[in-house]
C-alpha cells in the first residue's frame, strides 16, 4: 500500500524541471522495433514501448521532463493530448524498476 502511495505521490509531484539519470547497471537489447532493458546483476527485464524508449534515450541526453514532453509534442502533434501523461507514466515506471535515478542536478 505504501509503495502504491509512493508511486502516486511521484506522479502527482513530478517536477517538470527534474532530470533523471540512467542507472548504469541497466543495458539495452534491441529487437526490430522494440527494446528490452535488463539489469546485469539480476534477471529483471523491462519491456519498453516506443514512448518509453524515447523517454529513456532523452534521459540519457540529460533532458528535463519538460524538455522531453515539449520535444515529443513537437514530433507527434496529433498525440499532444496524451503525451504529458504518457511521459509521466513511462518515467514513473522506469523509476519504479530502478532503471532511472532522480538526478540531484536541477
Amino acid at each position: 500500500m505504501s509503495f502504491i502511495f509512493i508511486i502516486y505521490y511521484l506522479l502527482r509531484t513530478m517536477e517538470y524541471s527534474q532530470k533523471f539519470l540512467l542507472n548504469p547497471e541497466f543495458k539495452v537489447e534491441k529487437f526490430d522495433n522494440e527494446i528490452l532493458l535488463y539489469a546485469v546483476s539480476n534477471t529483471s527485464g523491462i519491456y519498453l514501448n516506443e514512448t518509453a524508449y524515447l523517454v529513456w534515450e532523452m534521459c540519457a541526453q540529460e533532458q528535463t521532463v519538460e524538455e522531453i514532453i515539449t520535444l515529443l509534442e513537437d514530433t507527434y502533434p496529433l498525440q499532444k493530448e496524451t503525451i504529458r501523461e504518457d511521459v509521466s507514466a513511462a518515467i514513473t515506471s522506469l523509476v519504479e524498476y530502478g532503471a532511472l535515478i532522480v538526478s540531484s542536478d536541477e
Partner: protein
Amino acid sequence: MSAVMNRTGSRTVGFCDQYVTINSYGEELESLVDFLCCDLQVGPETEARVSYDVMVRGRNSMLSLWHGDQYHYFGECRYEFAYSLINEIIYQCIVDNGAGHAIHAAAIGSENGAVLLPGKSGFGKSTLTAWLVSKGCNYLTDELVLLSGKNKQLFPFTRPFSMKIGSSAIMSSFLHYGLEDIISGKGGFMLPHRLVNPEFSPLTPALALILFPEYRSGAPTELSRLSSAFGCAQLMECYVNARNIQGLGISQLAEFSRNTPMYKLVYSSFDGLYEQLQDTFPTLF
C-alpha cells in the same frame, strides 16, 4: 551418521553434467528414491559434485536427508522428504551450471521439437502439462529446463509431476489414480508421469514453441502472439540462475526469443483447448 547403519543402495543422478550421489540407508528408501529419480539416473562411474545420505530409522520410520553433517530434512512425511530431496538435487544441478540458461518451466516434446511452458510456482503449469501428457504429448518436465545455445537444444529435468494439493480435483477429472500411486502431504502430492502416459521417450529436442500459460477463472481460451522483446522479458522472469545471465549474456536468450514463436495462453477450462492447440500448432500437438 552413516557409520552406524548399513548402506542399502547408492545411485548417481542429475542432468547436464551436474550430478549428485544419493546413498540410501534403509530398504524402503530405495523405492522412494527410484520414484523421484528414475529418469535422472546415470552410471555409477559418473563423477558427482556432492553426495547426500538418506535414512530411515526408529519405530516411527523417521526419514532424514543429510549432506555431510548437515541435515536438510528430518521427519515422518514422505512428501516433504521427497520435496526436500528433489529441491536439493535441482539446486546442485543448477548452481554452478554454465552450460545453458536454466528456466523455470514445464516442457513437452517430440522429434518435431519442444514446447516450453514457463511460469513461476502456482501458475498451474504442472496441472496443464499433466493434462497435455494425458492427451498423448511426451512429457519432459514440469519444473526446469536448461536451454543450450547450440541449436536451441532443451535439456529437461525429468521428475514426477509435483502438484499443489488444490490440483487434485482437476487431476481426478482426467486421470484415475489412488493414494498408493502417489506421495502426498499437506502441501501437495507427487505423481509418476508414466501413470499419466506410459509412453515416454527421454528426449532433448530443439525448442520449437514457447507458451506462457495463465489460468484465469471464467476467461475464454485465448492464444495471443507475443512480440520478441515482450516474450524475452517474460522469459527472464522465469530465469533460475542469475549468475548464468551474467556469464552467458542476454544476447543468446534474446536470440531464442527472436527465433521462437511465443504465445500467451489464457484458459479457464480444458474444453476445446487441445483441439485449438492442434489447429494452431499441428506439428507439435
